[in-house]
């Protein structure tokens, strides 16, 4: 299978993540969109690794997974605090620092 197929799938997934990130209002959904983008990148890494016959692509994927896990842990903790304080998950209302 040519590498362009994988890359096209990766690009589609990334684009969906971007769209979700920009247009959704629910923090959880936004969060999931980020995960989607990360995994799209992972897919691209693996595809390149396979095509070029190198291990670095797979190694990077592990790094990304670890960082994503850490980010999910911190991010979800923040989401819980926001949910408790605001009784809402709408990002439009998280604007304390707004001028």
């Amino acid at each position: 299978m040519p590498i362009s197929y994988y890359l096209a799938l990766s690009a589609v997934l990334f684009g969906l993540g971007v769209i979700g990130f920009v247009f959704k209002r629910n923090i959880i959904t936004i969060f999931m969109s980020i995960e989607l983008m990360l995994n799209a990148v992972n897919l691209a890494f693996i595809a390149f690794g396979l095509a070029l016959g190198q291990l670095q692509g797979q190694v990077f994927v592990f790094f990304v997974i670890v960082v994503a896990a850490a980010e999910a842990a911190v991010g979800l903790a923040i989401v819980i605090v926001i949910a408790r304080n605001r009784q809402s998950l709408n990002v439009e209302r998280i604007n304390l620092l707004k001028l």
Partner: protein
Amino acid sequence: MLEHLWLIPLLPLLGAASNGIFVSRWPRSAVNAIALGSTGLSFLATLEVAREFANLSADQIPWLRSYFTWIEAGSFRADFALQVDQLTLIMLLVVTGVGWLIHLYSIGYMPDDTGYRRFFAYLNLFMFFMLTLVLAANYLVLFVGWEGVGLCSYLLIGFWFLKKTATDAGNKAFWVNRIGDFGFLLGLFLLFRQFGTLDFAPIFRNSAALPVETSGHGVLTAIALLLLAGATGKSAQLPLYVWLPDAMEGPTPVSALIHAATMVAAGVYMVARSHVLFTHAPVAMFAVAVIGCATALFAATIALVQTDIKRTLAYSTISQLGYMFIACGVGAFGAGIFHLMTHAFFKALLFLGAGSVMHATGGEQDMRLMGGLRKSVPWTYATMFIATLAISGMPGFSGFFSKEEILLAAGTGPYANSVIYVLGVITAGLTALYMFRLLFLTFHGVPRFDQKKTHVHESPRIILAPLAVLALLSVVGGWWAAPHLVGGLNYFDNFLKLVFLASETSSSTDSYSGNSQLIATVFGPPMVAAFIGFLLAWLLYIRRPETPKRLAESLSAPYRLLAGKYFVDELYALLIVRPLVWISANFLWRAVDEESIDGLVNGVAREAGEIGDRLRHLNSGNMRTYAAWVILGAVVLTTLLVWTVR
């Protein structure tokens, strides 16, 4: 002790440090012990140095000790080096000896207030800088001492800093000295450019080898004239003398130590130290003599009509410093240093006596409100009488020998100048006139103050003891330099001759030995002038005390000129001070500082603020907008990347 020369200046510095910093709550007796002890030990160390100095062989002089390299930059190198030769030794003895006596006097004189400790700290600090100045073995160390004594002078003139006139006088002294020091500094730069060093020995050795610049065009003439500018500032000569009369705002012991005996003589010392440079620049020599002569006469005339006892003495000091400059200017450096020494004795005595009078009358300084104090303060009167005889040059007293030697050199020496000689003789007469006027106004006649209110009392012994010692020195201080002419050994001149070997030709009176014709023609006029001065003073102030007032009325124009001190202060104010203040206030302050510099700084800040004010609207608080920006940025970057790779 010669190995540890550094101890001599360091001891007073330690005294200043401990009195000034460490012991804030120690009792008065501890402050006294530190101040007196440090200067006293310094004096003893100087005596020990003098004893060991006598055993040195001629090739060991000047005795030079370099302690550490102070500055090293490129080809420039300056060591912290001290040296002792005959000239330094005499200055050391005068500074530490007279300095110690004045410290002793101050203990009895200064009021016991919060400033007591500060006063002694400053005084000790002054001793440190003055001793550094005279011990210096290169111009840079000398300059450190030079500036340091200027600083102490400023601090002590403005000692009573709550008094506006005192702080103004301090500022004036500092600024006027700055003008002279600027010249001095330029002279040092030129010295370094010419000789590549600032050490005394190589400079004097190399400049002695240069030809004498008779035409007046040359680097040595320029250097000598610039050094002279520094000396006129420090030694209060025309045209920079204006600070010294105002310096009398300081406490009286300060006037005695700094503004009469030691610091103001630093200029004379420096000129004498640089004698090789000056003798190779006859134009500069002539300038020294002319400035000295003009100052001597000028200040003596002003002193004739002053009513403030300390100001009279201040003008007298300026006049006597003029004599020392005449001595240097006519090549008689030894005579100049000799007059410096005798002047230190009798002028310190006069100031301390004036302080004692002020002490007795409750702080009165106006001689018009004194009179008839002779009976109530007999010791002060007796010592001041001796000092007056000495400064007037009455035969046998110290001032007689030094003044005669200067005028002898002015009349017959290698640089003899008959105009300078005649003016010097006239000044000698004026000196006797104003000094006896001071004495008669203060101590003779009828009391002109309210005797019920002012209880006149003799000062305590601690004040009188230094007076007595200085009175003794004022009498005998000149004897060891009595020239051969009058049967003396002239030890002083022979002692100093080794220093001035290169330049002093025949200023000493040895060659005239036994020529009675010459005694009459050269020694006669100054003596006659002094007696005439004395007789005039006696006539005007004892015999007919009402004449001075009538004289002032009938000669009102010259009187007002003198009483107004030739209006030099007013002239300087008109020509220099007021234009400077006007330019500062209107141009430098408003146009340059407020408009340009402040405008630039404030303008930059205002512009930054305005730009920020516009940009802050990007910070909407809407997270999705931020995300859109991030994505936009990523798209732009990626596009650029793809573009450039391709």
